[in-house]
């Protein structure tokens, strides 16, 4: 008798969303597009406009989704401070107007308005695990689109080898920037191969709403197999280049934070173990998984890179 082992992304037929609900959601997406015009007013009032999108079940997290309140009040965003309670301060970050330049080694450099991205990119919801280098984790339903879709518009040149993400630096609303000795703006990067991986996700929403500023709104990046600090927040520029970028944290503490920063429970941080993680919301301690459990999708990216410091 043949034994069938289900793949990580497969789910039982009984859990597939019924067709009428799917098309109902599409109507809702259309409604969402219609109300984008109301978004600035909603943001000014401290509320976030709805951003419904159909969930992609290929990336089932295998864990409960973190409560929205937890994910929006326990945040790392260094421009607002090195502590976790920056959510109130971050509300001062204006979310509109907002543009993202995509430039460098591309055929057609472009500056995208956030509304353009929301209406033209193929939005979907993905529930990803997020593993912070500080040994805590969350599960967040992000709304966004694959980075590859954005790169498809600007068409990277064959010579481009890296993608660099730059966070906004607005001293009038970001108190962290008063620490003039840090190498602002916050820079992060990945290889072009990592950028092209299907998991690499440009995030514009969470929990069915537009992305809160404390979570990196209005647009951030996320690669769920890497530690969270690799994900640039509130992005204003994406540059394709042939030179490997030196990221913000690499400049500050190169012995602790490197370019690759792939999750690996067997490689400790210099000051703590990475073997397990504290789940935000429950405080349960669970074992950390190699590549944060996404090895089936990304392990191939790192064959032949044994000389690189892949895990920090």
């Amino acid at each position: 008798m043949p034994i069938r082992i289900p793949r990580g992304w497969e789910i039982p037929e009984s859990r597939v969303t019924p067709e009428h609900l799917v098309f109902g959601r599409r109507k809702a997406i259309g409604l969402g597009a219609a109300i984008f015009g109301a978004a600035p007013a909603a943001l000014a009032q401290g509320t976030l406009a709805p951003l419904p999108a159909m969930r992609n079940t290929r990336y089932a997290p295998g864990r409960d989704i973190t409560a929205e309140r937890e994910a929006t009040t326990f945040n790392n965003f260094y421009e607002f401070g090195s502590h976790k309670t920056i959510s109130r301060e971050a509300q001062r970050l204006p979310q509109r107007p907002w543009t993202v330049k995509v430039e460098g080694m591309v055929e057609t450099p472009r500056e995208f308005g956030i509304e353009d991205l929301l209406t033209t990119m193929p939005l979907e919801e993905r529930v990803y695990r997020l593993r912070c280098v500080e040994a805590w984790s969350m599960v967040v339903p992000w709304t966004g689109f694959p980075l590859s879709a954005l790169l498809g518009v600007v068409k990277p040149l064959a010579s481009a080898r890296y993608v660099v993400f730059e966070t906004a630096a607005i001293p009038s609303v970001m108190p962290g920037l008063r620490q003039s000795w840090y190498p602002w703006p916050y820079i992060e990067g990945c290889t072009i191969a990592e950028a092209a991986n299907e998991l690499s996700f440009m995030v514009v929403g969470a929990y069915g709403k537009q992305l809160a500023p404390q979570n990196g709104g209005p647009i951030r990046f996320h690669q769920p197999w890497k530690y969270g600090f690799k994900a640039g927040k509130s992005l204003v520029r994406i540059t394709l280049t042939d030179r490997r970028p030196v990221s913000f944290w690499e400049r500050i503490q190169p012995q602790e934070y490197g370019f690759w920063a792939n999750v690996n429970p067997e490689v400790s941080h210099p000051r703590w173990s990475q073997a397990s993680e504290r789940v935000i919301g429950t405080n349960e301690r669970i074992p950390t998984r190699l590549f944060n459990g996404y090895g089936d999708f990304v392990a191939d990216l790192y064959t032949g890179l044994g000389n690189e410091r892949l895990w920090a």
Partner: protein
Amino acid sequence: MVLKTVALLFFASALMLALTLGAWWPLGALLFRINPAALNSLQAGVQRYLFPELWDGLFVPLLNTPAWVLPALIGACFLLAASLRPGRG
């Protein structure tokens, strides 16, 4: 005499910092250049385990003052202490 000598050393340090780094080079930038990890750890410690406001309200302004100000202030304190000390004669 000892206090005045120490004060003089601090004043000399202040002058040297101002001449080598420039009059407006912040103390934080100097400490960051010497040991970036230590300053970062100090910030994390103050903001996470004491009060975030303490970092923003006290440490950041202090670290943003020109690097020569701190040794100059310490030198001034030693000079003041020397002047307040009763004479031995």
